[in-house]
């Protein structure tokens, strides 16, 4: 009795509080960019490394391949994505008011990844990192919103970049196949694109963890931690599906819309089954869901902005489209927002 194959049914591109911002100034996205490391590892190639198969991975997750950093640093990926977004927005780095990088960990603990990018692109503005794991990009948008509300920002660069390959145990077949590396970026300007946004946290130290440094302090006995990323799959799945359903309903309602009025859903690309689980519970038509997990794997915070850039570059996002973004992951955190797309579609 064969199980239905988990096929990517979405339109593939080879890509703890709510606000209602109707009639208020918020921001709009005026440029997008992304960068992947050059090296691609397929499921078949990973099955040479750990005891797994293409069938096992793709039927359970929808992932067929992922990009893995070899010679590229995370800073280089972040800078490439940033430069693309600035070019797409027709904005010079000197015009930036703020740089926020969403990342679990940059190449350095300090300087922050945002500071490294600031140096490399020649910007002069404040720069800092935010770690909300997979929800980091939307948390970053929420932080930027505050700057716009205080009228403290003109152009803002938000980058989300991860090298998950540094955090996984490459001997653990259950986890090393799930993740990938990459960076995505957006440039914001004042506007009315962001219509509703929500962020949540449910702190937990035993469900999804990546250990920090403990150093060699001879006077302390640090608490024992796993050496690499640990994840309780079933608990994370339940949290993710529940969050995605609840958060999307909340922000769509806060935006004064119905689920059927959403033009595109961009979910965090962690696992196709999570998205299917939410899709089966929501009223948003199936064809409105977009994804690229087949070739990206789970890139944590970078997942959504990379997908956004792929859709933008493919000319699929039309002016006036209402996009619903939804993320969930480490923390445990979740976040969602509705954005009205004010850019003209890229002509193909």
């Amino acid at each position, binding site marked *: *009795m064969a*199980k239905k194959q988990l096929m990517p049914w979405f339109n593939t591109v080879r890509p703890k509080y709510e606000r209602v911002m109707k009639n208020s100034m918020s921001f709009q996205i005026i440029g997008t960019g992304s960068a992947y490391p050059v090296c691609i590892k397929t499921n078949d190639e990973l099955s040479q490394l750990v005891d797994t198969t293409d069938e096992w991975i793709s039927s*359970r997750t929808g992932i067929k391949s992922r990009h893995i950093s070899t010679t590229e640093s995370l800073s280089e990926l972040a800078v490439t994505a940033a430069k693309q977004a600035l070019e797409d927005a027709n904005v010079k780095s000197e015009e930036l008011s703020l740089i926020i990088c969403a990342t679990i960990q940059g190449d350095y603990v300090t300087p922050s990844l945002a500071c490294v990018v600031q140096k490399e692109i020649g910007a002069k503005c404040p720069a800092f990192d935010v770690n909300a794991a997979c929800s980091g990009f939307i948390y970053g948008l929420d932080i930027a919103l505050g700057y716009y509300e205080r009228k403290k920002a003109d152009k803002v660069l938000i980058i989300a970049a991860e090298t998950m390959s540094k955090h996984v145990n490459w001997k653990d077949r259950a986890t090393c196949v799930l993740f990938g590396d990459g960076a995505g970026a957006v440039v914001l300007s004042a506007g009315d694109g962001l219509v509703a946004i929500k962020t949540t946290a449910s702190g937990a130290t035993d469900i999804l963890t990546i250990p920090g440094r403990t150093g060699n302090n001879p006077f302390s006995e640090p608490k024992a931690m796993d050496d690499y990323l640990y994840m309780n*799959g*079933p608990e994370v799945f*339940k949290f993710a599906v529940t969050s995605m359903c609840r958060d999307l309903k909340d922000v769509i309602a806060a935006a004064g819309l119905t689920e059927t009025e959403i033009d595109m859903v961009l979910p965090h690309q962690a696992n196709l089954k999570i998205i299917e*689980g939410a899709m089966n519970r929501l009223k948003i038509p199936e064809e409105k869901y977009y994804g690229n997990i087949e070739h990206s794997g789970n890139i944590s915070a970078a997942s959504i902005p990379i997908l956004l850039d792929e859709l933008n570059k493919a000319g699929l996002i039309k002016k006036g489209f209402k996009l619903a973004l939804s993320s969930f992951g480490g923390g445990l955190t979740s976040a969602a927002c509705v954005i009205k797309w004010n850019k003209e579609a890229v002509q193909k």
Partner: protein
Amino acid sequence: MTVLNKVAEILADHTDVAVEEITMETNFEKLGLDSLDMVDLVMQMEEEFDVKIAINQQLAQVSDLVKLIEGLQN
């Protein structure tokens, strides 16, 4: 709808098996359900029957799930 009927309906939706072929003895692993499919199944049962089920239940076959839910309903 009885608990068994609802389980059968959900399983038929997730797999190539017809509703009529699902019995109390149907084994979840033999149907090809993995750990995440099981979590989704349990979540749907929670939603349908308004009960709370812990994630780490040992559910090998349909009767395990049916008995668990009927127990929570009483």
